[in-house]
């Protein structure tokens, strides 16, 4: 980082402008890269011209994107202690959104993994988990709250040392004109939870081994608003607020269409893909062949 300017250099508008502009080119631990092709970690298999977003998010941070149908969204636990909490909304009709109950019930499966669709409340696939190198995720517990983090860590405010997921989701949602009313239960990636079949009790199973570098690829089946908060899982038992950086990359792709092995993976899933395809067709949403 360049040395901070002395206060005296900002005494006039001209000097203040020079001072502000002198910060250009600074690289931070967590930041978006524009253009995305400037990101040093572009995956080898992704043509730089296809990359549409590259960002690193700090532990305790959040980001939000609006993505086209077909976009591949890759979330990577860079240092092994990220936990990516996710909410999805249909981009042009945000009252349609991720429904975790339907996401698990329709799939007859409570544990998220490759091939699992993230469903809306309107019987459409919003996204598909197309790749998963972690296997440690959660669709039951939602995210952390101000009250929980205040009790656990002494603070849960966005500006404090232990931001709560729900507070960060509130900020991310507000960027799309949405409010706390619009925050349904979320899913999270990179920290696992299992349910005891007899008692129903939760067990926090932590991260995959190895955790650093674990990634999840989501394919957007429809145009989506994506909210991502990187905060400790609410069942993480560690006394200190522990969360490391999350990498968020996005590149151009195509939705899941007939002929893709995922399309006919399950009868329920195929109907969801057909509903998403019908929505795209009716709305005139063109997708790359």
């Amino acid at each position: 980082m360049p040395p901070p300017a002395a206060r005296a250099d900002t005494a006039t508008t001209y000097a203040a402008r020079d001072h502000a502009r002198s910060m250009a080119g600074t690289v931070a631990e967590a930041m978006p890269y524009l253009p995305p092709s400037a990101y040093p970690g572009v995956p080898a298999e992704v043509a730089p011209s296809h990359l549409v977003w590259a960002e690193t998010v700090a532990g305790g941070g959040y980001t939000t994107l609006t993505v086209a149908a077909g976009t591949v969204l890759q979330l990577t636990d860079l240092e092994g202690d990220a936990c990516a909490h996710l909410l999805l909304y249909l981009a042009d009709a945000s009252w349609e959104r991720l429904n975790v109950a339907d996401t698990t019930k329709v799939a007859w499966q409570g544990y998220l993994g490759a091939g699992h669709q993230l469903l809306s409340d309107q019987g459409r696939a919003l996204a598909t988990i197309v790749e998963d190198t972690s296997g440690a995720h959660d669709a039951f517990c939602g995210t952390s709250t101000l009250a929980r983090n205040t009790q656990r860590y002494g603070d849960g405010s966005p500006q404090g040392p232990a931001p709560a997921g729900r507070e960060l989701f509130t900020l991310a949602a507000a960027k799309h004109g949405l409010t706390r009313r619009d925050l349904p239960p979320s899913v999270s990636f990179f920290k696992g939870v299992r349910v005891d079949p007899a008692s129903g009790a939760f067990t926090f199973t932590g991260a995959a081994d190895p955790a650093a570098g674990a990634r999840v690829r989501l394919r957007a089946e429809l145009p989506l608003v994506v909210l991502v908060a990187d905060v400790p899982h609410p069942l993480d038992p560690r006394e200190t607020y522990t969360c490391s950086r999350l990498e968020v990359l996005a590149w151009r792709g195509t939705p899941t269409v007939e002929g893709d092995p995922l399309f006919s993976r399950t009868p329920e899933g195929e109907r969801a893909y057909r509903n998403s395809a019908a929505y795209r067709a009716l709305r005139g949403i063109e997708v790359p062949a």
Partner: protein
Amino acid sequence: MSAASPADVVPEAVRGDVVRDEHVPARAPWSAVVAAGDVLTIVDLGGNQAVDCLLYDAHDHAQRYSAAETMLAQGGIFLVTGTVLRTGEGAPLLTVVADDVGRHDTIGGACSKESNALRYGHHTVHQHACVENFLIEGSRWGLGKRDLVSNINWYMNVPVEADGTLGIVDGLSAPGLRVSLRADVDTLVLVSNCPQVNNPCNGFDPTPVRMIVTRP
């Protein structure tokens, strides 16, 4: 309507003056504000009748039921006697104070025309569903689609297997079995007496339920 009144003998936890005693027809919605301190008792008149339920702070509808917060606070998925039903911010709304069944569900969500199409086929789209009940009943309170979240399913049985397989299976309830909920704050209770006929949550035969509110 309720000729057989299995709730006439009420447990200690729900004794008091009856301030409301209503019959909810099969497949119909219902709603009421239950005042802080009052106890709402739901009676499964016909047996194995799923009663889908959403809760809102009566004075601030933005504070509403959260399945995740409720499960997190107790460390597991089943709703049992003692379970505190919480808002998205973790605040108590209702507490389960008596239960004849043993456990109830909050991971299975509500049936909808749209999810029925996925689960059973597009031929079921025009069947009535719980989300329709929530939307029409919620509209009477100024609530809309944005206000629907993961709900409670009284009397519904949704186990999770070791490999993560989950689903709605045969219920544990029987005619006359009750669950009683004490309001910790004034709470708007929104109910869909589930009309589902494609899975065992209503024993493939939706039946009426009875809603009794008592004031100790």
